[in-house]
C-alpha cells in the first residue's frame, strides 16, 4: 500500500508540470476565462441585459456546469492513459516494478489538480466579475425606439425587460447571496473530479476516449439530464445540480426550472458522486492491471 501511494505521488509530481504546460490545458484555460468575461461583458456593456445575480446564475449553470466542466474533464481526463498509448511511451511504465493502477491514479490526480485550479479560477472570476459590477448596476429605464420601415411607415418599439423581484432583491449589498458561491464551487470541483475519473477510466480500454467521452457527456447525459422524470438520476449532472440546489434553490429554479428534477440532498448527492468516482477508478485500475497494450513500432 505504501509503495502504491509513493508511486502515485511520484506520478502526480512528475506529470503535474507536464499537464500544466500541455496544449489542451491552454484550451481549457481559455474556456475557463470566457465564463467571467461573458458575465462581465453582459453587466458592463448590455444596458437591458441581466441583473448581477442573473449574470452569475446563467453562466454558472449553462456555461460552467452543463458545458465547461464535462468538456474540460473530457479533454484532460481522456488523455490520462490514451496519451501514453498514442505516444507509445506506456511500454516504459508497464515494464517497471510498480502497481499499474498507480499510473492511472497518479496521472488522474495531476489532471484533476490542474482542472480544479482552472475551474476554481473560473468560478472565482465569475464571482469577482459580478460583484465588481453589481454596485454600479441599475435596471435600465424602458427605452422607446422609433424607425421607418420599407413601406415608409413609422414604427416604435419599447425596449424593456421584466426582471423577477427575487433577482432584483438578491444582491442588496452587491455581494452574492450567502452560500451560493460555495455551493457552485463545490459542485464544479466535484463534477471535474468525477467526470475526469470517468473519462480517464474510459481511456484504459478505449482507443478513442475523447470521442466516446464527448458523445457520452453531450449526447447521452445531455439527453437524460434534461429529460423530466427519474432518468435524470442516471447522470452525473443530476447530482451536481442537487449540490447546487442545496443553497438558494428558489433562485436556481427561476434560472433552469425545466432542467431541475426534485434534487437529492447534498449528502446523498455527494455519496452518489463518490461512488461513481470510486467505481470509475477501480474499474480503470482493474483494466490497466490486466490489459496488454499492443503498440506498433
Amino acid at each position, binding site marked *: 500500500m505504501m509503495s502504491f501511494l509513493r508511486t502515485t505521488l511520484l506520478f502526480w509530481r512528475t506529470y503535474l508540470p507536464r499537464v500544466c504546460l500541455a496544449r489542451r490545458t491552454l484550451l481549457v484555460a481559455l474556456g475557463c476565462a470566457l465564463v467571467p468575461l461573458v458575465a462581465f461583458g453582459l453587466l458592463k456593456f448590455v444596458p437591458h441585459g441581466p441583473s448581477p445575480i442573473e449574470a452569475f446564475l446563467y453562466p454558472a449553470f449553462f456555461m460552467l456546469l452543463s458545458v465547461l466542466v464535462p468538456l474540460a474533464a473530457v479533454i484532460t481526463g481522456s488523455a490520462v492513459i490514451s496519451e501514453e498509448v498514442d505516444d507509445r511511451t506506456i511500454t516504459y*511504465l508497464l515494464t517497471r516494478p510498480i502497481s499499474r493502477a498507480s499510473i492511472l491514479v497518479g496521472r488522474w490526480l495531476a489532471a484533476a489538480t490542474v482542472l480544479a485550479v482552472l475551474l476554481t479560477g473560473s468560478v472565482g472570476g465569475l464571482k469577482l466579475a459580478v460583484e465588481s459590477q453589481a454596485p454600479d448596476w441599475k435596471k435600465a429605464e424602458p427605452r422607446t425606439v422609433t424607425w421607418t420601415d420599407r413601406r415608409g411607415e413609422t414604427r416604435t418599439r419599447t425596449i424593456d425587460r421584466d426582471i423577477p423581484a427575487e433577482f432584483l432583491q438578491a444582491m442588496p449589498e452587491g455581494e452574492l447571496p450567502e452560500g451560493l458561491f460555495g455551493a457552485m464551487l463545490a459542485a464544479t470541483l466535484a463534477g471535474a473530479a468525477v467526470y475526469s475519473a470517468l473519462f480517464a477510466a474510459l481511456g484504459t480500454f478505449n482507443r478513442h476516449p475523447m470521442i466516446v467521452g464527448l458523445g457520452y457527456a453531450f449526447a447521452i447525459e445531455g439527453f437524460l439530464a434534461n429529460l423530466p422524470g427519474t432518468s435524470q438520476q442516471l447522470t452525473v449532472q443530476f447530482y451536481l445540480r442537487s449540490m447546487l440546489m442545496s443553497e438558494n434553490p428558489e433562485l436556481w429554479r427561476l434560472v433552469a426550472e425545466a432542467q431541475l428534477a426534485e434534487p437529492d440532498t447534498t449528502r446523498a448527492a455527494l455519496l452518489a458522486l463518490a461512488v461513481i468516482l470510486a467505481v470509475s477508478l477501480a474499474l480503470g485500475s482493474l483494466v490497466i492491471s490486466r490489459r496488454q497494450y499492443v503498440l*506498433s513500432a
Partner: protein
Amino acid sequence: MSALVVADKVGCWYGQVVGLSELTLTIQGGITGLVGPNGAGKSTFLKLVAGELRPARGDIRVLGHAPFANREYFRRVGFCPQQEAIWGDMTGLEVVEFLMRLSGYAPSEARRRAHAALDRVGLLDARTRRTAGYSKGMRQRTKIAQAIAHDPELVVADEPLNGLDPVGRAEIQKLFAELGAAGMHVLVSSHVLHEVEALTPSIVLFHRGRLLAQGPVGEIRRLLSRHPRRVELVARDARRLAAVLMALEPVSSVRIAADGRVAVETGDVERFFRELTALAPRERAGIRSIESHDANLESVFDYLVG
C-alpha cells in the same frame, strides 16, 4: 545452469495476424541474437520476454518467472523497446531518473544511476537537453540507458542499433559485449545478420512467427552460404572471363548481359569466391568490380524455409 528463457508452444496473435505460432524454444544465458526479416516475430517474442505482452497460448518463463505484469520480475529485467518514442518534453536525464524512481530507487540514487547510465551510452553531455531535440541515435541511446541503469540481470533490446551511425553502432556493440562480459544476459534483435554476428556467436533465427534455426552463427552462416546467389562481375575481357568461370565447379550458369556484365549463378558462394581469387591473377581477365546479389535476409529466409 538453468535456462534463461523457456518458451513452450507459445502462440501470439494480433487479431487475425499471427505474431508467433507454436514457438518452443530454450535460450541459455549470455548474449543471444535474434535475427529475422521484418514481421518474423522477433519483436513479439521480445515483448513476451519483457512482460509487455502475454502469450495467447502456451507458456513462457524467463529467469523462472511468468513475465507479464510481474513486478518481481521487472526488477531483474531492462527493456529497450523497438519504438523510438520517448517523452519529448523531458530531458534525457529526467527520463532515466524518472524511470529509476519507478524502479524503486531513492531520488539521489536514481540520479546517480541515471548519470552513470547516460555516461555509459555516451550521452552525458546532452543529458540536460530535451529529448524532442535528440537525433534518432540519441533517443536510441537514451532507451538503452534506461534499460541498463538499474543493473538488471537481463537486458532485452529490440533493434537497438537502428538509427545509429557506424561509430555509434560500434560503441553500442562494445557496450553490449561489456554487459555480457560482466555477467549480464542480453537478448538483442536485428534484421541484419552481421550486426548480431558482431555481438555474439549464439543466434536464433525467426521467420513468419516460427523458430527457423538456433545455434552458433558459424553453422548458420554455412547454411546461408549454400543459398544460390547471383554474382555480377565487370571485366575488361568479359567473354574470356565467362569462359573461365564456366569451368568452375560451384558455378551453375554464366550469362553476359547487354551492358557487358558477367552474371554468374552459384550454389556455394564461399567456394566460388575462393576459386575466383585464385584464378583472377592467373587469367588476367581485368576484373574491375564484383557485386553479390540476393544476399538480403528475406531471400535467404525464403530459401531456408523452402
